[in-house]
């Protein structure tokens, strides 16, 4: 038997104008976790689509157990026991977990479903690998982490032994990430082989055996994780040295810019409040980070702060003006900038050109319009200035459709637009989500530059690394409340994790409450 379970040798795949994969070789050993590392647009997804039969390569061969195979469509891949968990899950929202798992491979007798049989197999698998799921829950009712387990079970149900994980941790909480790593290790013990696509170096260092690095469609090499460092990997991926530390000038604290008092926001999903009695201040010249696990009220708080949603109680003051009930446009005029959490939903009009997007917050200002007519020349000049200054890369410059730009450059465009407004307060919600190290480094620099220029920055983040390195002050949010305030230099990740998980609260004793909740859960 060949040493490798899957070999992709000298794969070249071209698209009009782009060589997405240029002579790439990837060899997956039996029972290993093999990471595929590269920035956005490096060709990872293309390579996997080739393996999955979605694209036919112009050159190169694929071998399974040393025998050359032809993969023309996903069914062929499935027949070779290759399974994949996609970054965006492919689940039917209104179906149950069990229905989703058997979908496309339904056990039947003369066309009649044999669900009992399937249920037995699914329960058996979930127990064997520690993948707890409720087979009868509907997908729309379960958490993202649980949905991912369903995707994994789908592969196991089909007896796949080559498992591809495409950016699996992007949607998970730190605890769920740890669980996933553990599950991956279990799989390799059973002899399954894993291809792990990611651009997060820490995860590769934690779980992978070997790593193949791609850069701009080219093969940069395969390394043993044992023999390498995070720095070396990032150099291979980006092509230059990347700073992991954030340089900050000495802090010069100014006046209070944002004053939040007793803000309460009702939840849209349940009867409780999503944000409960939150109070804090942000001063000029500091970065305050609102940390917490996803779904603990950060999003709702930001909606209330920026005017996208209404709050039921409390008062928000921006530079001395009460903005509790102000319109979004007025908040913007008073000096608030907002880098939104979801750049496609809120941040950009994807079918507008880049220049139109760059003036989205300012098109109404006299600088860009005259008696209701847009001053195209000024818009173009302004766009070109921002593109140059913030290094926003796109196919056709100012007239590029935002949709055709890469995620990192879309985010850069938003950051440029919001920062160039010269805000008193910059609200940045997960500004680095889904970006590669180069772009993350850049955006962190920009945030710190705002702070050093004497502006107030409110950063909302789920990434522990970011929480620890960027801000001057950390506020931890749990179930809609602020449960702790820390100086990042004086707190450990573990300590922070306890507050984020609700096990500790600076302002009251949580023991009794927790026990009550456990009883409720049972």
């Amino acid at each position, binding site marked *: 038997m060949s040493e490798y379970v899957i070999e992709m040798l000298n794969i070249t795949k071209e698209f*009009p*104008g*782009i060589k997405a994969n240029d002579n790439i070789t990837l060899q997956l050993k039996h029972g290993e976790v093999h990471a595929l590392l590269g920035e956005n*647009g490096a060709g990872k*997804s*293309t390579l*996997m*689509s080739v393996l*999955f039969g979605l*694209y036919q390569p112009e050159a190169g061969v694929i071998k399974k157990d040393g025998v050359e195979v032809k993969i023309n*469509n*996903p*069914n062929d*891949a*499935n027949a070779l026991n290759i399974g*994949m968990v*996609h970054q*965006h899950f*492919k*689940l*039917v929202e209104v179906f149950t977990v069990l229905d989703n798992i058997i*979908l*496309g*491979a339904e056990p039947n007798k003369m066309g009649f479903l044999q669900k009992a049989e399937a249920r037995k197999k699914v329960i058996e698998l979930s127990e064997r690998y520690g993948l707890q799921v409720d087979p009868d829950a509907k997908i729309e009712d379960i958490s993202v982490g649980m949905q991912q387990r369903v995707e994994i079970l789908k592969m196991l149900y*089909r007896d796949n032994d080559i498992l591809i994980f495409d950016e699996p941790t992007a949607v998970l909480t730190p605890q769920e990430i740890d669980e996933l790593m553990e599950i991956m290790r279990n799989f390799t013990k059973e002899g399954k082989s894993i291809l792990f696509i990611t651009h997060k170096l820490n995860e590769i260092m934690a779980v992978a055996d070997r790593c193949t690095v791609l850069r*701009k469609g080219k093969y940069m090499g395969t390394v043993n994780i044992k023999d390498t460092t995070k720095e070396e990997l990032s150099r291979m991926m980006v092509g230059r040295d990347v700073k992991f530390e954030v340089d900050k000038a000495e802090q010069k604290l100014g006046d209070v810019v944002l004053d939040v008092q007793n803000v309460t926001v009702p939840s849209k999903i349940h009867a409780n409040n999503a944000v409960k009695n939150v109070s804090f201040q942000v001063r000029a010249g500091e970065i305050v980070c609102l940390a917490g696990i996803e779904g603990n009220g950060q999003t709702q708080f930001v909606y209330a702060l*920026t005017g996208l949603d209404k709050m039921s109680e409390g008062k928000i003051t921006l530079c001395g003006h009460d903005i509790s009930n102000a*319109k*979004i*446009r007025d*908040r*913007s005029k008073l000096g608030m900038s907002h880098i*939104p959490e979801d750049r496609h*939903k*809120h*941040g*950009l*009009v*994807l*079918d507008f050109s880049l220049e139109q997007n760059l003036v*989205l*917050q300012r*098109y*109404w200002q006299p600088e860009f319009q005259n008696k*209701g*007519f*847009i001053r*195209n020349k000024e818009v173009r000049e302004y766009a070109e200035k921002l593109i140059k200054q913030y290094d926003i*890369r*796109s*196919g*056709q410059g100012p*007239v*590029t459709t935002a*949709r*055709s*730009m*890469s995620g*990192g*450059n879309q985010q850069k465009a938003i950051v440029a637009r919001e920062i160039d407004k010269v805000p008193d307060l910059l609200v940045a919600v997960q500004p680095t989500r889904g970006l590669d190290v180069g772009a993350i480094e850049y955006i962190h620099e920009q945030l710190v530059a705002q702070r050093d220029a004497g502006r107030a920055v409110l950063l909302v983040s789920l990434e522990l690394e970011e929480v620890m390195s960027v801000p001057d002050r950390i506020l931890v949010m749990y179930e809609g409340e602020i449960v702790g305030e820390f100086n990042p230099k004086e707190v450990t990740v573990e300590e922070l994790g306890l507050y984020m998980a609700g096990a500790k609260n600076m302002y009251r004793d949580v023991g009794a409450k927790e026990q009550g909740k456990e009883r409720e859960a049972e």
Partner: protein
Amino acid sequence: MKKGMISVLASVISILVGLLFGLLLLIVVNPAMAFPKFGELLTAGVSSLPKLAKVLYQAAPLVMTGLAVAFAFKTGLFNIGASGQYTVGAFCALACAIIFQMPWWICLIASLVAGAVWGFFPGLFKSLFNVNEVITSIMFNWIGMMAVNLLCMNLKNAAGQLVMLPTAWVSSPIKDRTAALSYANPSAMIPKMGLDRLFQSNYMNISIFIAALVAVLLWVVLNRTTFGYELKACGYNKNASIYAGINAKRNIVLSMVISGAMAGLGGGLYYLAGTADYTIQKALLPMGFNGISVALLATSNPIGTIFSALFISYIQVGGESLQPVYAKEMIDIIIAVIIYLSAFALLTKNIISKYIRTDKTNVNAEPVPPAAPVPAAETGAVDSGEVPEKTVESEGEDK
């Protein structure tokens, strides 16, 4: 290649495919006469000045209903209520002309306002209660048509005569249509400015120029003003426009009002020509629905609607020349096939864009896979992934 060029090319190819199918139908029905009659179909519109006048006369209201649909498309709405707005606009123009004896331009303004009101309600329900504008505007089509029928047959003047009907003006047995403007109020007829003599046709007046002017105006509003920028932002991404502080609710209503006003004005332009009377209707007027084809063929570009309306009008006039060799119904089917396939412009545009990539230099955008990478066996055919193509495309370059 420029995006604007692709749009034009797509429309032309669609038209050619539509014509080819029309020819095939002609051959199937009557092979001997197919080719000469097809030739007539293609040339009838320019065979004589009166024919050309008719093309222009019919194109004017088509431009307007086309604009109504195109403008709504651009702002993310589907105004299928153009027919109702058109009918209501026509009635108000005629009522102003016949009952109130107003001059033509006030009648036109009345039609504009009436259409706007008819567009306002679907817009209001959409913005306040998120009721789908398609449903409301379909309902308003019927409400509008029935209300107009009712009013035409019941409105009485001081002397107790049915004022909208010919009987109030001349001795006439006709009771199913409105009085002709030629005797009821000649001053309400749209001026001909000598064009009727030039074209030797009673159909010719300045309506096509009014329509073209409005189209240009609308293009300017959409592409050059902050108002148009806001409307388009709302249409493409409502959430992002709210985030940018744009009043999305107000803009939805305004979009529908403007869209309705366009269709209403179309009604005014057609019936104030004085060559057709409003007949009591049993079915919705097709002019509003033809507007959808016009808008699709023009890929929602206001300037494009002028040309696509001219084309559709041209084919309709050409179709008349097929009689009596082909039955009237047959001609309608052939015209429908041509228009139907012509409306595939958007589809054609996407196909062309796929082959001619405009963003060759895109530095690090990830190539978009042709289909979401879903192995069929794994998930069935269901896929909730993003759909990159929108139903309504932008019309391209702003110059």
